[in-house]
């Protein structure tokens, strides 16, 4: 038997996922619209960790804000010399 939930369920629209490079790191950018809000999340390709996100009233706004955050976080990632 189903529980009677008061849910406001909506289908995500305009879902997209793409890969690109940012600051020398391979990242994926996932964006979708739910209601009136665009949600964007950015993850590293390796190891696949979601590390920045933002919302906006347009896709461009949400992605620009998320990418700005991602750039800031990635700039803090130190690289040490690879073993010889």
């Amino acid at each position, binding site marked *: 038997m189903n529980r009677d939930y*008061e849910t406001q*369920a*909506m289908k*995500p*629209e305009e879902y997209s996922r793409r890969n690109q490079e940012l600051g020398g790191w391979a990242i994926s950018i996932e964006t979708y619209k739910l209601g009136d809000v665009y949600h964007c999340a950015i993850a590293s390709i390796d*190891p696949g960790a979601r590390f920045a996100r933002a919302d906006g009233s347009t896709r461009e706004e949400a992605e620009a804000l998320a990418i700005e955050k991602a750039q800031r976080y990635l700039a803090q*990632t130190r690289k*040490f010399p690879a073993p010889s």
Partner: protein
Amino acid sequence: MMTNTLPGVLVTTDWVAQHATDAGVRVVEVDVDTSAYDQGHVPGAIGWNWTTDLCDTVVRDIVPVKKLEALLGASGIGNKTTIVLYGDNNNWFAAWAFWQLKVYGHDDVRIMDGGRKKWLAEGRELSTTKPAVEKAAYKASAPDVSIRAFLPEVQQAMKAKSARLVDVRGPQEFTGEILAPPGLPETCQRGGHIPGARNIPWGKNCNDDGTFKSSEELKALYASQGITSDAPVIAYCRIGERSSLTWFALKYLLGFGDVKNYDGSWTEWGNLVGAPIEK
């Protein structure tokens, strides 16, 4: 050593869409990004925060038993409830929650194959409403430490080669080129890996859509690195959540009899004074 595949621990997104609000079923979202649940979740699902709900917030440890019992009770989960976990990052922290629920003996725990990624990609409904939950009573079992490795056991395994160590982090973390996944905080003083460990990144368990690979593919993957069910295995990563996913794959998808998650992981080992490290 016995091999026992348990396919009932994975459910599809279709199954969840049909059963998420059934009596006796509780769907729970657990994400790396603790704000993801509020951006829209499976209708009827509740959200757990791994940084507050699924750990001891004073001592570094898994969730204490009384806190777990309170969390499950407040989530409307009784001892007979079917718990279905899912989350972002191909179920990293869903697997972390699964592992802790097994430590405390919950019988019927499952993972939604593909997690949040697949649900979203399929355009399925999301809700921003937190469901009203009727509280339940929950009594946890004594912790099952047969699925949890502590530091002394890992040190012994390294020295005596009494268990195979699987480092599931990315190759750059394994070699010490970076100390944490790009964009995430560093939690250790030194990079590298535990001597003798094999690097089999967690992502190799998964398909592009976030689902787990077939048992045949997984068996071949691990066998190619000498990881087979005839010897004990200890998996580790940085803080224990990615290794929960590998632990899940080895124990429940491949049926390995003796596999443990070392949740202390590199955050513990890479901060130890004098601990041997390979790069």
